[in-house]
Protein backbone atom coordinates (compact mmCIF):
# COMPACT_ATOMS: atom_id res chain seq x y z
CA UNK A 1 0.00 0.00 0.00
CA UNK A 2 2.82 2.40 0.89
CA UNK A 3 4.34 1.98 -2.55
CA UNK A 4 1.09 2.97 -4.27
CA UNK A 5 -0.26 5.94 -2.34
CA UNK A 6 1.86 8.31 -0.22
CA UNK A 7 0.92 8.03 3.49
CA UNK A 8 0.23 11.76 3.61
CA UNK A 9 -2.20 11.48 0.71
CA UNK A 10 -4.09 8.74 2.56
CA UNK A 11 -4.47 11.21 5.42
CA UNK A 12 -5.66 13.94 3.04
CA UNK A 13 -8.25 11.59 1.48
CA UNK A 14 -9.43 10.16 4.81
CA UNK A 15 -9.79 13.71 6.14
CA UNK A 16 -12.81 13.97 3.83
CA UNK A 17 -14.51 11.28 5.94
CA UNK A 18 -14.40 13.49 9.04
CA UNK A 19 -17.45 15.59 8.08
CA UNK A 20 -19.43 12.37 7.43
CA UNK A 21 -18.97 11.02 10.96
CA UNK A 22 -20.45 11.92 14.33
CA UNK A 23 -19.81 11.23 17.99
CA UNK A 24 -17.60 8.33 19.01
CA UNK A 25 -16.94 7.31 15.42
CA UNK A 26 -15.50 10.73 14.70
CA UNK A 27 -13.35 10.66 17.84
CA UNK A 28 -12.09 7.25 16.81
CA UNK A 29 -11.29 8.52 13.31
CA UNK A 30 -9.57 11.66 14.61
CA UNK A 31 -7.35 9.72 17.00
CA UNK A 32 -6.91 6.53 14.98
CA UNK A 33 -6.04 8.13 11.65
CA UNK A 34 -2.79 9.82 12.79
CA UNK A 35 -1.61 6.58 14.43
CA UNK A 36 -2.41 4.59 11.26
CA UNK A 37 -0.55 7.15 9.13
CA UNK A 38 2.41 7.06 11.54
CA UNK A 39 2.53 3.30 11.03
CA UNK A 40 2.47 3.77 7.23
CA UNK A 41 5.25 6.38 7.40
CA UNK A 42 7.52 3.81 8.99
CA UNK A 43 6.70 1.31 6.22
CA UNK A 44 8.20 3.62 3.59
CA UNK A 45 11.66 2.31 2.67
CA UNK A 46 14.64 4.54 1.94
CA UNK A 47 14.82 5.77 -1.64
CA UNK A 48 12.14 6.17 -4.28
CA UNK A 49 9.39 3.59 -4.21
CA UNK A 50 6.92 5.16 -6.62
CA UNK A 51 7.66 6.92 -9.90
CA UNK A 52 4.98 8.49 -12.06
CA UNK A 53 5.72 9.75 -15.57
CA UNK A 54 4.54 13.30 -16.10
CA UNK A 55 5.15 14.95 -19.49
CA UNK A 56 8.83 14.23 -20.08
CA UNK A 57 9.63 14.31 -16.37
CA UNK A 58 9.22 11.75 -13.64
CA UNK A 59 7.53 12.45 -10.32
CA UNK A 60 8.60 10.67 -7.15
CA UNK A 61 5.76 11.17 -4.70
CA UNK A 62 7.11 8.51 -2.32
CA UNK A 63 10.75 8.94 -1.46
CA UNK A 64 11.87 7.79 1.99
CA UNK A 65 14.78 9.45 3.80
CA UNK A 66 15.84 9.59 7.46
CA UNK A 67 15.16 13.29 7.80
CA UNK A 68 11.85 13.10 5.95
CA UNK A 69 10.70 10.25 8.16
CA UNK A 70 11.65 12.23 11.27
CA UNK A 71 9.57 15.23 10.21
CA UNK A 72 6.67 13.04 9.06
CA UNK A 73 6.72 11.25 12.42
CA UNK A 74 6.49 14.40 14.48
CA UNK A 75 3.77 15.75 12.16
CA UNK A 76 1.68 12.63 12.75
CA UNK A 77 2.25 12.80 16.54
CA UNK A 78 1.32 16.47 16.42
CA UNK A 79 -1.93 15.77 14.58
CA UNK A 80 -2.84 13.12 17.14
CA UNK A 81 -2.31 15.44 20.13
CA UNK A 82 -3.88 18.38 18.32
CA UNK A 83 -6.99 16.34 17.53
CA UNK A 84 -7.15 15.12 21.13
CA UNK A 85 -6.98 18.73 22.29
CA UNK A 86 -9.59 19.83 19.75
CA UNK A 87 -12.16 17.06 20.45
CA UNK A 88 -15.53 18.48 21.31
CA UNK A 89 -14.60 22.12 20.83
CA UNK A 90 -13.27 22.59 17.31
CA UNK A 91 -15.56 22.94 14.30
CA UNK A 92 -15.83 20.23 11.66
CA UNK A 93 -14.22 22.54 9.09
CA UNK A 94 -11.24 23.06 11.35
CA UNK A 95 -10.72 19.35 12.04
CA UNK A 96 -11.02 18.45 8.35
CA UNK A 97 -8.74 21.28 7.26
CA UNK A 98 -6.19 20.37 9.95
CA UNK A 99 -6.03 16.77 8.73
CA UNK A 100 -5.58 17.90 5.09
CA UNK A 101 -2.97 20.38 6.30
CA UNK A 102 -1.02 17.72 8.23
CA UNK A 103 -1.41 15.21 5.40
CA UNK A 104 0.02 17.56 2.78
CA UNK A 105 2.89 18.45 5.15
CA UNK A 106 3.66 14.73 5.47
CA UNK A 107 3.48 14.42 1.66
CA UNK A 108 6.19 17.10 1.35
CA UNK A 109 8.49 15.32 3.80
CA UNK A 110 8.20 12.14 1.73
CA UNK A 111 8.37 13.74 -1.72
CA UNK A 112 11.38 13.20 -3.97
CA UNK A 113 10.64 15.81 -6.63
CA UNK A 114 10.05 19.55 -6.65
CA UNK A 115 6.68 19.43 -8.38
CA UNK A 116 5.16 17.19 -5.70
CA UNK A 117 6.61 19.55 -3.09
CA UNK A 118 5.00 22.49 -4.87
CA UNK A 119 1.57 20.88 -5.21
CA UNK A 120 1.36 19.98 -1.51
CA UNK A 121 2.91 23.34 -0.61
CA UNK A 122 -0.12 25.04 -2.15
CA UNK A 123 -2.60 22.60 -0.59
CA UNK A 124 -1.03 23.42 2.78
CA UNK A 125 -1.52 27.15 2.16
CA UNK A 126 -5.22 26.63 1.43
CA UNK A 127 -5.84 24.13 4.24
CA UNK A 128 -4.13 26.34 6.81
CA UNK A 129 -6.23 29.29 5.63
CA UNK A 130 -9.32 27.15 6.20
CA UNK A 131 -8.08 26.35 9.74
CA UNK A 132 -7.84 30.09 10.39
CA UNK A 133 -11.28 30.71 8.90
CA UNK A 134 -12.91 28.20 11.20
CA UNK A 135 -12.36 30.51 14.16
CA UNK A 136 -15.42 32.26 12.71
CA UNK A 137 -14.57 35.81 13.77
CA UNK A 138 -14.30 38.85 11.51
CA UNK A 139 -10.68 39.35 12.63
CA UNK A 140 -9.74 35.79 11.78
CA UNK A 141 -11.32 36.11 8.33
CA UNK A 142 -9.38 39.26 7.52
CA UNK A 143 -6.17 37.82 8.97
CA UNK A 144 -6.66 34.65 6.92
CA UNK A 145 -6.92 36.63 3.67
CA UNK A 146 -3.70 38.51 4.45
CA UNK A 147 -2.12 35.19 5.37
CA UNK A 148 -3.27 33.57 2.13
CA UNK A 149 -1.98 36.45 0.00
CA UNK A 150 1.52 36.18 1.49
CA UNK A 151 1.57 32.41 1.00
CA UNK A 152 0.24 32.55 -2.55
CA UNK A 153 2.96 35.09 -3.34
CA UNK A 154 5.50 32.68 -1.83
CA UNK A 155 4.03 29.88 -3.95
CA UNK A 156 4.31 31.87 -7.16
CA UNK A 157 7.96 32.73 -6.42
CA UNK A 158 8.65 29.08 -5.65
CA UNK A 159 6.98 27.96 -8.90
CA UNK A 160 9.05 30.42 -10.95
CA UNK A 161 12.17 29.08 -9.25
CA UNK A 162 11.20 25.47 -9.91
CA UNK A 163 10.45 26.21 -13.58
CA UNK A 164 13.84 27.91 -13.92
CA UNK A 165 15.58 25.02 -12.19
CA UNK A 166 13.96 22.46 -14.48
CA UNK A 167 14.86 24.58 -17.49
CA UNK A 168 18.52 24.69 -16.40
CA UNK A 169 18.99 21.13 -15.22
CA UNK A 170 16.21 19.22 -17.01
CA UNK A 171 15.38 17.40 -13.80
CA UNK A 172 12.66 17.71 -11.20
CA UNK A 173 14.53 15.72 -8.54
CA UNK A 174 14.63 17.51 -5.20
CA UNK A 175 18.31 17.55 -4.27
CA UNK A 176 20.57 19.97 -2.45
CA UNK A 177 21.06 23.17 -4.44
CA UNK A 178 23.55 26.04 -4.38
CA UNK A 179 22.61 29.71 -4.36
CA UNK A 180 24.23 30.05 -7.77
CA UNK A 181 21.41 31.04 -10.11
CA UNK A 182 18.35 33.24 -10.13
CA UNK A 183 16.11 30.15 -10.20
CA UNK A 184 17.71 28.75 -7.05
CA UNK A 185 17.43 32.09 -5.30
CA UNK A 186 13.71 32.13 -6.17
CA UNK A 187 13.29 28.66 -4.70
CA UNK A 188 15.15 29.78 -1.58
CA UNK A 189 12.95 32.87 -1.24
CA UNK A 190 9.80 30.78 -1.71
CA UNK A 191 10.93 28.42 1.06
CA UNK A 192 11.96 31.28 3.35
CA UNK A 193 8.61 33.04 3.10
CA UNK A 194 7.00 29.99 4.71
CA UNK A 195 9.72 29.94 7.35
CA UNK A 196 8.62 33.46 8.39
CA UNK A 197 11.98 34.91 7.40
CA UNK A 198 12.37 38.68 7.04
CA UNK A 199 11.06 40.89 5.62
CA UNK A 200 7.73 39.03 5.34
CA UNK A 201 7.83 37.51 8.85
CA UNK A 202 4.84 39.51 10.07
CA UNK A 203 2.30 37.08 8.57
CA UNK A 204 2.91 34.62 11.41
CA UNK A 205 2.22 36.88 14.38
CA UNK A 206 -0.59 38.50 12.41
CA UNK A 207 -2.49 35.31 11.61
CA UNK A 208 -1.82 32.53 14.13
CA UNK A 209 -3.14 34.35 17.22
CA UNK A 210 -6.48 34.91 15.46
CA UNK A 211 -7.21 31.19 15.11
CA UNK A 212 -9.39 29.22 17.51
CA UNK A 213 -7.72 27.81 20.68
CA UNK A 214 -7.02 24.50 18.91
CA UNK A 215 -6.47 26.14 15.51
CA UNK A 216 -3.35 27.95 16.63
CA UNK A 217 -1.99 24.65 17.99
CA UNK A 218 -2.31 23.06 14.52
CA UNK A 219 -0.96 26.14 12.77
CA UNK A 220 2.15 26.37 14.94
CA UNK A 221 3.43 23.01 13.78
CA UNK A 222 3.28 22.47 10.06
CA UNK A 223 3.98 25.48 7.81
CA UNK A 224 7.21 26.76 9.36
CA UNK A 225 8.58 23.30 10.08
CA UNK A 226 7.87 22.09 6.53
CA UNK A 227 9.86 25.14 5.43
CA UNK A 228 12.67 24.07 7.75
CA UNK A 229 12.52 20.60 6.20
CA UNK A 230 12.80 21.82 2.61
CA UNK A 231 15.59 24.25 3.53
CA UNK A 232 17.40 21.40 5.24
CA UNK A 233 17.02 19.25 2.11
CA UNK A 234 17.56 21.98 -0.44
CA UNK A 235 20.09 24.44 0.96
CA UNK A 236 22.26 22.90 3.70
CA UNK A 237 25.32 25.04 4.33
CA UNK A 238 24.05 28.14 2.44
CA UNK A 239 25.89 30.80 4.41
CA UNK A 240 23.25 33.50 4.01
CA UNK A 241 20.90 31.37 6.11
CA UNK A 242 23.13 31.92 9.17
CA UNK A 243 22.49 35.66 9.06
CA UNK A 244 18.80 35.34 8.19
CA UNK A 245 18.42 32.88 11.07
CA UNK A 246 20.18 35.14 13.57
CA UNK A 247 17.99 38.04 12.52
CA UNK A 248 14.88 35.90 13.08
CA UNK A 249 16.15 34.81 16.50
CA UNK A 250 16.49 38.36 17.77
CA UNK A 251 13.44 39.67 15.93
CA UNK A 252 11.37 37.06 17.76
CA UNK A 253 12.81 37.97 21.15
CA UNK A 254 12.50 41.74 20.82
CA UNK A 255 8.94 41.64 19.42
CA UNK A 256 7.83 39.11 22.04
CA UNK A 257 9.24 41.36 24.77
CA UNK A 258 7.11 44.25 23.49
CA UNK A 259 3.95 42.15 23.11
CA UNK A 260 0.91 42.03 25.39
CA UNK A 261 -1.20 39.27 23.75
CA UNK A 262 -0.15 35.87 25.14
CA UNK A 263 -0.65 34.01 21.88
CA UNK A 264 1.24 36.67 19.93
CA UNK A 265 4.14 36.28 22.39
CA UNK A 266 4.18 32.59 21.49
CA UNK A 267 3.83 33.37 17.78
CA UNK A 268 6.91 35.61 17.87
CA UNK A 269 8.75 32.90 19.70
CA UNK A 270 8.01 30.51 16.81
CA UNK A 271 9.96 32.89 14.56
CA UNK A 272 12.69 32.91 17.20
CA UNK A 273 12.90 29.12 17.34
CA UNK A 274 12.75 28.68 13.57
CA UNK A 275 15.60 31.22 13.50
CA UNK A 276 17.76 28.79 15.49
CA UNK A 277 16.97 26.08 12.94
CA UNK A 278 17.66 28.32 9.92
CA UNK A 279 21.01 29.32 11.48
CA UNK A 280 21.84 25.65 11.96
CA UNK A 281 21.02 24.89 8.31
CA UNK A 282 23.35 27.73 7.33
CA UNK A 283 26.18 26.26 9.43
CA UNK A 284 25.52 23.04 7.57
CA UNK A 285 27.81 20.53 9.35
CA UNK A 286 26.43 17.10 10.26
CA UNK A 287 26.29 18.23 13.90
CA UNK A 288 24.32 21.34 12.90
CA UNK A 289 21.92 19.48 10.61
CA UNK A 290 21.32 16.82 13.26
CA UNK A 291 20.67 19.65 15.70
CA UNK A 292 18.18 21.27 13.30
CA UNK A 293 16.26 18.03 12.79
CA UNK A 294 16.22 17.26 16.51
CA UNK A 295 15.24 20.82 17.37
CA UNK A 296 12.37 20.81 14.85
CA UNK A 297 11.11 17.61 16.47
CA UNK A 298 11.25 18.86 20.07
CA UNK A 299 10.13 22.35 19.11
CA UNK A 300 6.87 21.16 17.55
CA UNK A 301 6.02 19.36 20.76
CA UNK A 302 6.82 22.08 23.31
CA UNK A 303 5.45 24.88 21.14
CA UNK A 304 2.18 22.99 20.70
CA UNK A 305 2.17 22.43 24.47
CA UNK A 306 2.63 26.14 25.13
CA UNK A 307 -0.15 27.02 22.68
CA UNK A 308 -2.41 24.37 24.22
CA UNK A 309 -1.87 25.92 27.61
CA UNK A 310 -2.54 29.41 26.21
CA UNK A 311 -5.50 27.97 24.29
CA UNK A 312 -6.91 26.47 27.49
CA UNK A 313 -6.68 29.85 29.20
CA UNK A 314 -8.40 31.50 26.23
CA UNK A 315 -11.04 28.75 26.09
CA UNK A 316 -11.86 29.04 29.80
CA UNK A 317 -11.59 32.82 30.25
CA UNK A 318 -12.12 34.28 26.77
CA UNK A 319 -9.17 36.57 27.45
CA UNK A 320 -5.79 36.69 25.76
CA UNK A 321 -4.08 39.88 26.92
CA UNK A 322 -1.48 39.74 29.68
CA UNK A 323 -2.99 42.90 31.13
CA UNK A 324 -6.29 41.01 31.71
CA UNK A 325 -4.73 37.80 32.99
CA UNK A 326 -2.72 36.76 36.03
CA UNK A 327 -2.99 34.60 39.13
CA UNK A 328 -4.59 31.68 37.25
CA UNK A 329 -2.33 29.09 38.96
CA UNK A 330 -4.83 28.91 41.82
CA UNK A 331 -7.59 27.26 39.84
CA UNK A 332 -5.78 25.92 36.74
CA UNK A 333 -3.05 23.72 38.23
CA UNK A 334 -2.77 21.31 35.27
CA UNK A 335 -2.66 24.09 32.69
CA UNK A 336 -0.11 26.00 34.78
CA UNK A 337 2.14 22.96 35.30
CA UNK A 338 2.00 22.02 31.61
CA UNK A 339 2.59 25.63 30.56
CA UNK A 340 5.65 25.79 32.81
CA UNK A 341 7.02 22.51 31.44
CA UNK A 342 6.59 23.83 27.90
CA UNK A 343 8.28 27.08 28.93
CA UNK A 344 11.21 25.22 30.49
CA UNK A 345 11.54 23.03 27.40
CA UNK A 346 11.60 26.00 24.99
CA UNK A 347 14.26 27.58 27.22
CA UNK A 348 16.34 24.39 26.94
CA UNK A 349 16.48 23.73 30.67
CA UNK A 350 18.40 20.56 31.60
CA UNK A 351 16.09 17.52 31.75
CA UNK A 352 13.77 18.96 29.09
CA UNK A 353 13.68 18.26 25.36
CA UNK A 354 15.01 21.69 24.33
CA UNK A 355 18.27 21.04 26.18
CA UNK A 356 19.18 17.97 24.18
CA UNK A 357 18.30 19.50 20.78
CA UNK A 358 19.10 23.21 20.70
CA UNK A 359 22.53 22.72 22.24
CA UNK A 360 23.61 20.71 19.19
CA UNK A 361 23.23 23.81 17.01
CA UNK A 362 25.35 25.89 19.42
CA UNK A 363 27.85 23.04 19.59
CA UNK A 364 28.12 23.08 15.78
CA UNK A 365 28.96 26.82 15.84
CA UNK A 366 31.47 26.07 18.61
CA UNK A 367 33.11 23.23 16.67
CA UNK A 368 33.41 25.41 13.56
CA UNK A 369 35.08 28.18 15.63
CA UNK A 370 32.35 30.65 14.68
CA UNK A 371 32.89 32.84 17.77
CA UNK A 372 30.47 35.66 16.96
CA UNK A 373 27.70 33.31 15.90
CA UNK A 374 28.23 31.16 18.97
CA UNK A 375 28.08 34.22 21.27
CA UNK A 376 24.91 35.46 19.56
CA UNK A 377 23.28 32.04 19.89
CA UNK A 378 24.18 31.97 23.60
CA UNK A 379 22.67 35.42 24.09
CA UNK A 380 19.61 34.27 22.18
CA UNK A 381 19.24 31.21 24.41
CA UNK A 382 19.18 33.51 27.42
CA UNK A 383 16.71 35.69 25.55
CA UNK A 384 14.37 32.73 24.95
CA UNK A 385 14.07 32.20 28.69
CA UNK A 386 13.41 35.91 29.04
CA UNK A 387 10.65 36.30 26.42
CA UNK A 388 8.95 32.90 26.53
CA UNK A 389 10.35 30.86 29.38
CA UNK A 390 9.45 33.29 32.12
CA UNK A 391 7.39 35.99 30.49
CA UNK A 392 4.60 33.72 29.28
CA UNK A 393 3.94 31.75 32.51
CA UNK A 394 4.63 34.73 34.73
CA UNK A 395 2.16 37.13 33.13
CA UNK A 396 -0.53 34.51 32.48
CA UNK A 397 -0.46 32.36 35.60
CA UNK A 398 1.22 34.48 38.29
CA UNK A 399 1.91 38.22 38.18
CA UNK A 400 -1.05 39.94 39.85
CA UNK A 401 -4.35 38.42 40.91
CA UNK A 402 -6.69 39.21 38.04
CA UNK A 403 -9.63 37.92 40.06
CA UNK A 404 -10.37 35.32 37.37
CA UNK A 405 -11.03 31.85 38.79
CA UNK A 406 -11.39 29.57 35.75
CA UNK A 407 -11.22 25.81 36.18
CA UNK A 408 -8.86 23.61 34.21
CA UNK A 409 -10.19 22.81 30.71
CA UNK A 410 -12.11 19.58 29.86
CA UNK A 411 -10.45 16.17 30.23
CA UNK A 412 -9.38 15.72 26.59
CA UNK A 413 -7.60 19.07 26.57
CA UNK A 414 -5.84 18.22 29.82
CA UNK A 415 -4.83 14.81 28.47
CA UNK A 416 -3.35 16.36 25.32
CA UNK A 417 -1.30 18.74 27.46
CA UNK A 418 -0.16 15.99 29.82
CA UNK A 419 0.89 13.82 26.87
CA UNK A 420 3.06 16.54 25.38
CA UNK A 421 4.43 17.62 28.77
CA UNK A 422 5.46 14.00 29.35
CA UNK A 423 7.16 13.95 25.93
CA UNK A 424 9.03 17.18 26.74
CA UNK A 425 10.45 15.66 29.91
CA UNK A 426 10.81 12.16 28.49
CA UNK A 427 12.93 13.31 25.53
CA UNK A 428 14.95 15.51 27.86
CA UNK A 429 15.77 12.67 30.22
CA UNK A 430 16.10 9.94 27.62
CA UNK A 431 17.09 11.47 24.25
CA UNK A 432 18.44 8.23 22.73
CA UNK A 433 15.30 7.28 20.72
CA UNK A 434 15.30 10.73 19.09
CA UNK A 435 19.06 10.64 18.48
CA UNK A 436 18.61 7.23 16.86
CA UNK A 437 16.33 8.58 14.12
CA UNK A 438 18.40 11.70 13.28
CA UNK A 439 19.74 11.92 9.70
CA UNK A 440 23.41 11.48 10.66
CA UNK A 441 25.15 9.42 13.31
CA UNK A 442 25.10 11.30 16.61
CA UNK A 443 28.43 12.02 18.25
CA UNK A 444 27.16 14.24 21.02
CA UNK A 445 26.66 13.91 24.78
CA UNK A 446 24.32 16.59 26.07
CA UNK A 447 24.72 15.87 29.77
CA UNK A 448 28.23 16.90 30.75
CA UNK A 449 28.81 18.71 34.06
CA UNK A 450 30.19 21.69 32.20
CA UNK A 451 27.25 21.98 29.82
CA UNK A 452 24.65 21.63 32.58
CA UNK A 453 26.35 24.22 34.81
CA UNK A 454 26.83 26.60 31.90
CA UNK A 455 23.19 26.32 30.82
CA UNK A 456 21.94 26.79 34.40
CA UNK A 457 24.08 29.89 34.85
CA UNK A 458 22.89 31.33 31.56
CA UNK A 459 19.20 30.68 32.19
CA UNK A 460 19.02 31.48 35.89
CA UNK A 461 20.81 34.79 35.42
CA UNK A 462 18.48 35.57 32.51
CA UNK A 463 15.73 34.91 35.05
CA UNK A 464 17.39 37.27 37.49
CA UNK A 465 17.51 39.92 34.76
CA UNK A 466 13.78 39.41 34.19
CA UNK A 467 12.84 40.05 37.80
CA UNK A 468 15.33 42.90 38.26
CA UNK A 469 13.99 44.59 35.12
CA UNK A 470 10.34 43.72 35.72
CA UNK A 471 9.32 47.38 36.18
CA UNK A 472 10.72 48.01 32.68
CA UNK A 473 8.45 45.33 31.26
CA UNK A 474 5.14 46.63 32.51
CA UNK A 475 2.51 45.46 30.02
CA UNK A 476 0.96 48.13 27.84
CA UNK A 477 -2.20 47.94 25.74
CA UNK A 478 -0.23 48.09 22.55
CA UNK A 479 0.78 46.24 19.43
CA UNK A 480 4.09 46.73 17.64
CA UNK A 481 4.27 47.83 14.02
CA UNK A 482 5.89 45.36 11.69
CA UNK A 483 6.45 44.93 7.97
CA UNK A 484 2.74 44.20 7.56
CA UNK A 485 2.20 47.92 8.15
CA UNK A 486 3.32 48.41 4.55
CA UNK A 487 0.58 46.22 3.09
CA UNK A 488 -2.07 47.07 5.66
CA UNK A 489 -1.56 50.82 5.88
CA UNK A 490 0.99 52.32 3.50
CA UNK A 491 0.06 50.61 0.21
CA UNK A 492 -3.73 50.93 0.64
CA UNK A 493 -3.25 54.56 1.63
CA UNK A 494 -1.12 55.23 -1.44
CA UNK A 495 -3.55 53.46 -3.78
CA UNK A 496 -6.58 55.20 -2.29
CA UNK A 497 -4.99 58.60 -2.61
CA UNK A 498 -3.04 58.21 -5.80
CA UNK A 499 -6.03 59.04 -8.05
CA UNK A 500 -6.96 62.20 -6.23
CA UNK A 501 -3.34 63.29 -6.36
CA UNK A 502 -3.18 62.48 -10.07
CA UNK A 503 -6.44 64.40 -10.55
CA UNK A 504 -5.11 67.39 -8.68
CA UNK A 505 -1.96 67.54 -10.73
CA UNK A 506 -3.52 66.58 -14.06
CA UNK A 507 -6.55 68.86 -14.00
CA UNK A 508 -4.75 72.23 -14.08
CA UNK A 509 -2.33 70.93 -16.71
CA UNK A 510 -5.20 69.71 -18.86
CA UNK A 511 -7.07 72.99 -18.40
CA UNK A 512 -4.16 75.18 -19.38
CA UNK A 513 -3.37 72.90 -22.34
CA UNK A 514 -6.88 73.18 -23.75
CA UNK A 515 -6.95 76.91 -23.24
CA UNK A 516 -3.70 77.26 -25.18
CA UNK A 517 -4.87 74.83 -27.88
CA UNK A 518 -8.12 76.71 -28.43
CA UNK A 519 -6.30 79.97 -28.59
CA UNK A 520 -3.81 78.54 -31.09
CA UNK A 521 -6.54 77.07 -33.32
CA UNK A 522 -8.51 80.26 -33.24
CA UNK A 523 -5.40 82.14 -34.28
CA UNK A 524 -4.65 79.80 -37.20
CA UNK A 525 -8.21 79.78 -38.52
CA UNK A 526 -8.29 83.55 -38.32
CA UNK A 527 -5.11 83.75 -40.37
CA UNK A 528 -6.42 81.27 -42.95
CA UNK A 529 -9.79 82.91 -43.15
CA UNK A 530 -8.01 86.11 -44.10
CA UNK A 531 -5.96 84.62 -46.99
CA UNK A 532 -8.34 82.53 -49.09
CA UNK A 533 -12.06 81.82 -49.15
CA UNK A 534 -11.82 78.61 -51.15
CA UNK A 535 -9.12 76.79 -49.16
CA UNK A 536 -10.26 77.81 -45.73
CA UNK A 537 -13.83 76.62 -46.24
CA UNK A 538 -14.94 73.89 -43.92
CA UNK A 539 -15.61 70.75 -45.98
CA UNK A 540 -17.25 67.57 -44.66
CA UNK A 541 -14.90 64.56 -44.34
CA UNK A 542 -17.07 62.64 -46.85
CA UNK A 543 -16.26 65.02 -49.70
CA UNK A 544 -12.59 64.75 -48.80
CA UNK A 545 -12.76 60.96 -49.07
CA UNK A 546 -14.59 61.24 -52.38
CA UNK A 547 -11.89 63.50 -53.87
CA UNK A 548 -9.14 61.17 -52.69
CA UNK A 549 -10.99 58.29 -54.37
CA UNK A 550 -11.25 60.30 -57.57
CA UNK A 551 -7.53 61.08 -57.54
CA UNK A 552 -6.67 57.41 -56.95
CA UNK A 553 -9.01 56.31 -59.76
CA UNK A 554 -7.37 58.77 -62.15
CA UNK A 555 -3.95 57.52 -61.08
CA UNK A 556 -5.01 53.93 -61.69
CA UNK A 557 -6.46 54.80 -65.08
CA UNK A 558 -3.25 56.61 -66.12
CA UNK A 559 -1.07 53.73 -65.00
CA UNK A 560 -3.14 51.38 -67.21
CA UNK A 561 -2.75 53.45 -70.37
CA UNK A 562 1.00 53.99 -69.90
CA UNK A 563 1.49 50.19 -69.99
Amino acid at each position, binding site marked *: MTNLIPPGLILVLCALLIPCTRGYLRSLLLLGLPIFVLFLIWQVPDGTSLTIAFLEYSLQPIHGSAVGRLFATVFAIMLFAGNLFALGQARTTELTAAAVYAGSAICITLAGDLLSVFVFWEIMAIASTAVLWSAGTAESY*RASIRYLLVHLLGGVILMIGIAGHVNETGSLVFTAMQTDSLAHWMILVGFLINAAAPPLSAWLADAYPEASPSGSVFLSAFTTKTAVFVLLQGFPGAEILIYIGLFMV*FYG*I*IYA*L*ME*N*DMRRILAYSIVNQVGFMVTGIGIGTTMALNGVAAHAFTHIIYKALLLMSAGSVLYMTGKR*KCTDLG*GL*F*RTMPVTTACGIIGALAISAFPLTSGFISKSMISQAA*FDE*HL*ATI*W*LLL*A*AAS*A*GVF*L*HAGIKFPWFVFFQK*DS*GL*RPADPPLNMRLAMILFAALCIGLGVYPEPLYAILPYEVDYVPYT*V*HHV*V*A*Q*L*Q*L*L*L*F*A*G*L*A*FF*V*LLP*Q*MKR*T*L*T*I*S*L*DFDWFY*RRAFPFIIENIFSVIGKVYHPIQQSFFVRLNRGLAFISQRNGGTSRLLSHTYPAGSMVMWVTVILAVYLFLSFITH
Partner: protein
Amino acid sequence: MESKQVHWLVRPATIRRLSITSLFVLALTVAADFFLPSYGHFGIDGTFGFYAWYGFITCALMVFVAKLLGLFIKRKDDYYHND
Protein backbone atom coordinates in the same frame (compact mmCIF):
# COMPACT_ATOMS: atom_id res chain seq x y z
CA MET B 1 -11.77 36.20 45.76
CA GLU B 2 -14.20 34.75 48.28
CA SER B 3 -11.56 32.78 50.11
CA LYS B 4 -10.25 34.97 52.92
CA GLN B 5 -7.04 33.06 53.13
CA VAL B 6 -4.31 34.22 50.77
CA HIS B 7 -2.82 31.42 48.69
CA TRP B 8 0.39 30.25 50.37
CA LEU B 9 2.39 30.95 47.25
CA VAL B 10 1.65 34.67 47.27
CA ARG B 11 2.14 35.27 51.01
CA PRO B 12 4.99 37.75 51.67
CA ALA B 13 6.81 35.19 53.82
CA THR B 14 6.78 32.60 51.01
CA ILE B 15 7.94 35.14 48.47
CA ARG B 16 10.82 36.16 50.76
CA ARG B 17 11.81 32.54 51.27
CA LEU B 18 11.63 31.88 47.51
CA SER B 19 13.78 34.92 46.77
CA ILE B 20 16.44 33.85 49.28
CA THR B 21 16.48 30.29 47.90
CA SER B 22 16.75 31.59 44.33
CA LEU B 23 19.67 33.87 45.16
CA PHE B 24 21.36 30.96 46.93
CA VAL B 25 20.93 28.75 43.85
CA LEU B 26 22.28 31.56 41.64
CA ALA B 27 25.36 31.84 43.86
CA LEU B 28 25.76 28.08 43.81
CA THR B 29 25.84 27.87 40.00
CA VAL B 30 28.54 30.53 39.88
CA ALA B 31 30.47 28.89 42.72
CA ALA B 32 30.55 25.70 40.65
CA ASP B 33 32.99 27.51 38.34
CA PHE B 34 35.62 27.22 41.11
CA PHE B 35 35.56 23.47 40.82
CA LEU B 36 35.33 23.12 37.06
CA PRO B 37 38.33 23.34 34.78
CA SER B 38 38.02 26.34 32.48
CA TYR B 39 36.89 25.29 29.00
CA GLY B 40 37.65 28.64 27.37
CA HIS B 41 37.56 28.12 23.63
CA PHE B 42 37.19 31.66 22.34
CA GLY B 43 38.91 33.34 25.30
CA ILE B 44 35.90 35.26 26.57
CA ASP B 45 33.99 32.11 27.50
CA GLY B 46 36.79 31.07 29.85
CA THR B 47 36.28 34.07 32.14
CA PHE B 48 34.93 33.44 35.62
CA GLY B 49 31.17 32.96 35.72
CA PHE B 50 31.01 33.70 31.99
CA TYR B 51 27.52 32.32 31.38
CA ALA B 52 26.17 34.13 34.42
CA TRP B 53 27.35 37.62 33.59
CA TYR B 54 26.90 37.14 29.85
CA GLY B 55 23.30 35.93 30.32
CA PHE B 56 22.46 38.80 32.63
CA ILE B 57 24.03 41.55 30.53
CA THR B 58 22.67 40.36 27.18
CA CYS B 59 19.17 40.03 28.65
CA ALA B 60 19.34 43.52 30.11
CA LEU B 61 20.46 44.71 26.70
CA MET B 62 17.55 42.99 24.95
CA VAL B 63 15.03 44.48 27.38
CA PHE B 64 16.59 47.89 26.79
CA VAL B 65 16.47 47.51 22.99
CA ALA B 66 12.84 46.37 23.14
CA LYS B 67 12.01 49.37 25.30
CA LEU B 68 13.78 51.76 22.95
CA LEU B 69 12.26 50.25 19.80
CA GLY B 70 8.86 50.32 21.51
CA LEU B 71 9.04 54.09 21.67
CA PHE B 72 8.94 54.18 17.88
CA ILE B 73 6.81 51.27 16.79
CA LYS B 74 4.29 50.65 19.58
CA ARG B 75 0.73 51.65 18.76
CA LYS B 76 -2.57 51.30 20.62
CA ASP B 77 -3.82 47.74 20.19
CA ASP B 78 -6.92 48.89 18.28
CA TYR B 79 -4.65 50.48 15.66
CA TYR B 80 -5.78 48.11 12.90
CA HIS B 81 -9.36 47.68 14.11
CA ASN B 82 -11.11 49.42 11.24
CA ASP B 83 -9.25 47.46 8.58
